[in-house]
């Protein structure tokens, strides 16, 4: 499976070549080793999951990918080139968008305005023009609003378009966060526990949307999730982490039968 031409998934989708590659990543916070010498790749068009028990270093890994943490050792390769240390907004400009485990929306702003912020990386009109809402700024906003409306339609949140985010229930906030990430038209979408704290119906909806995003827009998705059932159904390939180390990597079936993974989840004396 390590060929660069990609592969065909169980449900017949063609997965492309490598989009992002993590090479021997190690991340230390002082004496604590959060991630220890991990390598894996993310291919174009696939749904890639990172799973592991609490404290395994999953979120840290996502933060490395999104540029929030700079790895202590190792290299991140993106679209065929080695990525120098970058600020998160620079990574975002390269087409990597994310959602957060504990929702990071602007509570006082409407859904529409929140989703519009996802377009910021695509706007470059000057301050004066924006303040006067004239010329380039106006054209830009109209163009971006149109893109945002397509996302709103796609995620079926038209009815809450003008509702302040603070008034929404949790499940919908998660969906708005996804909308904002999608508005950026990312080539790689990072989802940090998209299903955490949801009821069964909300989980089903969210799974549907994740698959639809992947299917309709061809967006590559990398997600972290606790709910094993969801992960196994959604993803094409899974990386399993435990205590900052990679203990498994492969298709959901391969991972499910991996003795190291079973031990990590069921617990063996260390």
């Amino acid at each position: 499976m390590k060929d660069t031409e990609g592969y065909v998934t169980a449900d017949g989708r063609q997965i492309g070549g490598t989009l992002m590659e993590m090479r021997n990543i190690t991340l230390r916070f002082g004496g604590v080793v959060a991630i220890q010498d991990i390598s894996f790749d993310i291919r174009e068009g696939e749904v890639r999951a990172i799973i592991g028990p609490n404290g395994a270093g999953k979120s840290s890994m996502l933060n490395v990918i999104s540029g929030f943490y700079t790895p202590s050792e190792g290299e991140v390769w993106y679209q065929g080139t080695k990525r120098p240390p970058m600020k998160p907004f620079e990574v975002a400009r390269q087409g990597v968008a994310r959602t957060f485990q504990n929702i990071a929306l602007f509570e006082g702003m409407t859904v529409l305005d929140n989703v519009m912020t996802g377009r910021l990386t695509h706007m470059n009109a000057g301050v004066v023009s924006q303040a006067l809402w004239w010329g380039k700024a106006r054209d830009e906003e109209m163009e971006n609003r149109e893109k945002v409306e397509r996302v709103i339609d796609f995620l079926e949140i038209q009815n809450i378009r003008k509702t302040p985010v603070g008034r929404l229930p949790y499940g919908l906030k998660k969906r708005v966060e996804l909308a904002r990430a999608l508005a950026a038209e990312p080539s790689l979408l990072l989802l940090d526990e998209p299903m955490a704290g949801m009821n069964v119906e909300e989980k089903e909806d969210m799974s549907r949307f994740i698959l639809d995003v992947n299917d309709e827009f061809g967006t590559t998705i990398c997600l972290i999730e606790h709910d094993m059932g969801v992960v196994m159904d959604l993803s094409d390939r899974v990386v399993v982490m435990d205590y900052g180390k990679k203990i498994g990597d492969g298709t959901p079936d391969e991972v499910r039968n991996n003795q190291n993974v079973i031990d990590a989840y069921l617990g063996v004396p260390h």
Partner: protein
Amino acid sequence: MAHMTMGAEGLRSVPALLARNASQFGSSAAYREKEYGIWQSRTWAETAKEVEALALGLLNLGVNEGDFIAIIGRNRPYLYWSMVAAQSVGAIPVPLYQDAVAEEMEYVLDHCGARFAIVNDQEQVDKVIEVQDRLHQFEHMIYLDPRGLRKYDHTRLHQFSHVQDQGRAAYDEFINELQARTAKLDYDSTCVMLYTSGTTGKPKGVVLSNRNIIETAKASSEFDHLKVDDEVLAYLPMAWVGDFIFSIGQAYWSGFCVNCPESPETMMTDLREIAPSYYFAPPRVFETQLTQIMIRMEDSGAFKKKTFDYFMAHARKVGPAILDGHEVSAFDRLKYKLGEVMVYGPLKNALGFSNVRVGYTAGEAIGPEIFDFYRSLGINLKQLYGQTEASVFITQQPDGEVRSDTVGVPSPGVEIRIAENGEVYYRSPGVFVEYYKNAESTADTKDAEGWVATGDAGFIEEATGHLRIIDRAKDVGAMADGAMFAPKYVENKLKFYPNILEAVVFGSGRDRCCAFINIDLTAVGNWAERNNIAYASYQELAGHQQVLDTIQAHIEEVNASIAQDEMLSGCQVHRFLVLHKELDADDGELTRTRKVRRKIIGEKFEDLVNALYDGSTSVYTETEVTYEDGRKGKIKATLEIRDAKVVPASPQRMAAE
């Protein structure tokens, strides 16, 4: 109104009306749909082009004259075009209820032998695919929204826009055929076939001709002076005759604009943005709105609440009189004007009723308080009485003669007769052609002279000539002692309480009446919240002691009011229970238009009915429920049965009354 004087000559089909509108009102809006956050309009000229492209595409797919084309989805311009395109090629559109489950669709698709279906999205595509192997005549399906459908087998599946593209590409090949087929349409060709929701038994296909639809549309448009610049919001099911008359019949006759909401959830926002001038809603919608207003006023500050109460009291006193043009003192008028600025205007604006010139409610009886509330705000809300077999209109209320307890005078062109047994009969140009493939039922309903039995019992008020409906004729029965039993009459009185969503009264052939009650979750839930009553489920709330107390109080009030009526005083409710589940069309307990299916409920909950009559104080029951995706589950409950006070049958008349 130049086109009116032109007469109906040459305008004998909906496609002919479309051609007239395209030339006469070419640049005015015919359709608007909110999509991607913006109202996208289409003029009549553009509509004609779209319909033509689709019709050519249908010819390209091999649609024959006389074929049935099923149309399934929410109100969207594309689906309205589909109906007219189907007519243009000589086919017959059959709109279906979009929330019907697959088996219900199978029955209808099989009964009419539809060869084609035009549907909205993946949900509908899936349902049709599920049953299409059992439908031997079924061939092609066209869908609007491609989302999620990319991987489907497209040998018999087509995207709407592609069908139109192919139609445009094959213009030279098919245009003569299309024009020839459209020209052939006359007053006797079938305009549409609509399936009745069927309070009893299987749905029946009501065949309506161009004569039915166009004559009715013409008469009713003139009755209410509908014009090309009127606006309606199309949000009621496309399979329902009312929507067909309003959004196709009257819209094409008068040339007004049909607005389609963005999604069912945004209906209220869309209503406010469009502010229709002509509006229709079943009583349930008005009830829900009023409940919401009241809940929000309860939650508002003291000053606002006081202002609202003060001016609403005044509105109730003089509002209807002002609307009807009666004498009202100058001071009261001034105060009403002030109220308009302070309360009524903003309220109407929030509801989207600022521009309503004519509003109708029908389908069920509307509570007098609800009706008066809207009229007192200055909204010209009226009642009409109709059915699918009449192309809607049987009676309607003229401006200035509006009351909550009548359904109005016969609509233009309609004759009315009351039979010996009290059943209402009518005859009109709108009377349906036949029930499709059901000569027996046709003969039962319509006699040789064209009189149609409504199935409703009623009488004509001598003083005013207005029709009053008592109940479904077959539901009006006798109790064991021979007293008249009219369940709907009692149920309506009960349903006028915001806490009661639905009521089913039993008593035919019995010694006394008993009732099932469904609570209204919005109203009762809000009350519970206000009173710090915790509940985990609908079932728990429905069984709460205080809820039962409230319902009991409502029933006792209704009993007192029924006792006033000598004819019906036997219909007082002696015992009742509050159901543990909401009655639902998916479980077959209601029709798709949300009417109670009395017989089915009686059979399904036989154990509960028996418990009501055998004197027990509680009953354990298990009920099967169907989820939206068709899966089934069970709920178990122990229900408390309560006695309600009844008032002696012969009331003493107070001297003061």
